[in-house]
């Protein structure tokens, strides 16, 4: 089961890149219509079209991404603790350092690129806020989030070992309430729901409460692997079937929320069915321990490079999408070309960069750049 975690990480990073590809697809489909259609404002006529539903299905299938990363990270906190009472702070700091270095370097490089290419400059306070909250790009929130989990690990470990059922129940309930808040806010608007639910709905992604359940789940499985292996093996087909069924129901759930909201467009948020799907997917994947895995070496290789890909892909996609917007706008209206290009650069550029660094004298700086 454990060796499948690297493969699972590879799947997760593919899902992340695909998700951001589809996000650009939706931007081109709606917000950027004036660049390739004879309209002066964004139009939403393509809602309900075949490319639109293709994107929605992909978004549903790939909903596992970040929760999976957190699950694997939580699992390895359990590994690192071993039979000792708790993690040593030196180990926690070692892990945080390995995240902070690439995160800091790429944050600074991105700010520099904005200044040099776009003339954008922020205040010192703005840069500090962006750094602490992961607001430099839409993906960077993950690093402050994970750092919080590592810092909180000594506290979580005490419960994950001996009171894991209570811990999972509390964090699971919190996750459920958070997602109910999100759904209510999407459907009714912030002003029309109870303040407490609005607070949940507005919780920033970088705050540790937002996805604590997944990190805790990984840690609990790590500490109780023998019992979980038996459980997962016994119910693997049930989890598989739940995961499969969640895909169409997740799409329907989102469409229902969208239509109920009465808005032209909604940014994707994690829903209750997304969480059920993710848990069923992870459990089914780990339950089928003896099943052969497609392209095992290649996807494990992606899994090993997942942090480097995660930290670099979004900026590449950002610049390429905007270059297409500026110089080749007709391509925005041809999703079957636009999305593969974005996907190719999103995955390919980080891999090429990592390969180039690895093969040169810059090799010793690899971990500073890519973790």
């Amino acid at each position, binding site marked *: *089961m*454990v*060796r499948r*975690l*690297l493969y699972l*990480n590879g799947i997760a990073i593919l899902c992340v890149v695909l998700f951001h590809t589809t996000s650009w697809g939706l931007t081109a489909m709606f917000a950027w219509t004036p660049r390739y259609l004879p309209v002066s404002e964004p139009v939403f006529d393509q809602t309900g079209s075949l490319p639109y539903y293709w994107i929605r299905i992909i978004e549903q299938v790939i909903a596992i991404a970040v929760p999976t990363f957190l699950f*694997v*990270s939580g*699992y*390895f906190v359990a*590994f*690192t*603790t*071993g*039979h*000792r009472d708790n993690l*040593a702070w*030196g*180990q926690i700091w*070692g*892990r945080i*350092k*390995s995240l902070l270095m690439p995160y800091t370097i790429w944050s600074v490089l991105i700010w520099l690129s904005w200044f040099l290419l776009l003339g954008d400059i922020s205040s010192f306070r703005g840069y500090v806020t962006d750094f602490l909250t992961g607001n430099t790009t839409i993906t960077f929130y993950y690093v402050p989030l994970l750092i919080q989990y590592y810092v909180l690990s000594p506290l979580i470990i005490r419960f994950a070992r001996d009171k894991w059922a209570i811990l999972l129940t509390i964090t699971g309930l919190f996750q459920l309430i958070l997602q109910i808040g999100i759904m209510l806010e999407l459907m009714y608007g912030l002003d029309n729901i109870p303040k407490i639910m609005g607070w949940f709905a507005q919780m920033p992604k970088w705050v540790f409460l937002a996805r604590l359940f997944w990190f805790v789940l990984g840690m609990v499985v790590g500490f109780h*692997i*023998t019992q979980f*292996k038996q459980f997962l093996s016994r119910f693997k087909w049930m989890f598989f079937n739940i995961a499969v069924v969640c895909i169409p129901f997740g799409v329907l759930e989102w469409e229902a929320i969208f239509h109920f909201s009465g808005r032209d467009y909604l940014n994707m948020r994690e829903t209750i069915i997304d969480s059920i799907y993710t848990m069923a997917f992870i459990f089914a994947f780990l339950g089928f321990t003896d099943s052969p895995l497609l392209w095992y070496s290649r996807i*494990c290789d992606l*899994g*090993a490079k*997942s*942090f480097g890909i995660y930290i670099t892909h979004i900026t590449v996609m950002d610049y390429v999408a905007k270059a297409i917007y500026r110089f080749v706008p007709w391509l925005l209206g041809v999703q079957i070309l636009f999305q593969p290009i974005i996907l190719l650069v999103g995955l390919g550029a980080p891999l090429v960069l990592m390969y180039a660094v*690895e093969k040169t004298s810059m*090799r*010793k700086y*690899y*971990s500073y750049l890519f*973790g």
Partner: protein
Amino acid sequence: MDKKAILSDYIKNEIIRNRNFALDENDDLVGAGILDSLRILQLVAFIEKTFGIGVPDEAVIYDNFHSLTAIVSYLDGFSKDSR
């Protein structure tokens, strides 16, 4: 080449990516940030492929992987148990 040398070479070349890194056999690889969740999995895959053994899930624990000495000790114990 003995197990320790093979593992040391792999860790220096593929994980640390610095052939000249001064890796001591008793260094805490996890505490020093050399082995994280992904690199441990990479290392397990390398061990299984290179030494032709299957590392059970329950054996992928800190006690067996925290240093070169610990890993070699685990592999030696594994080899003895299989005889």
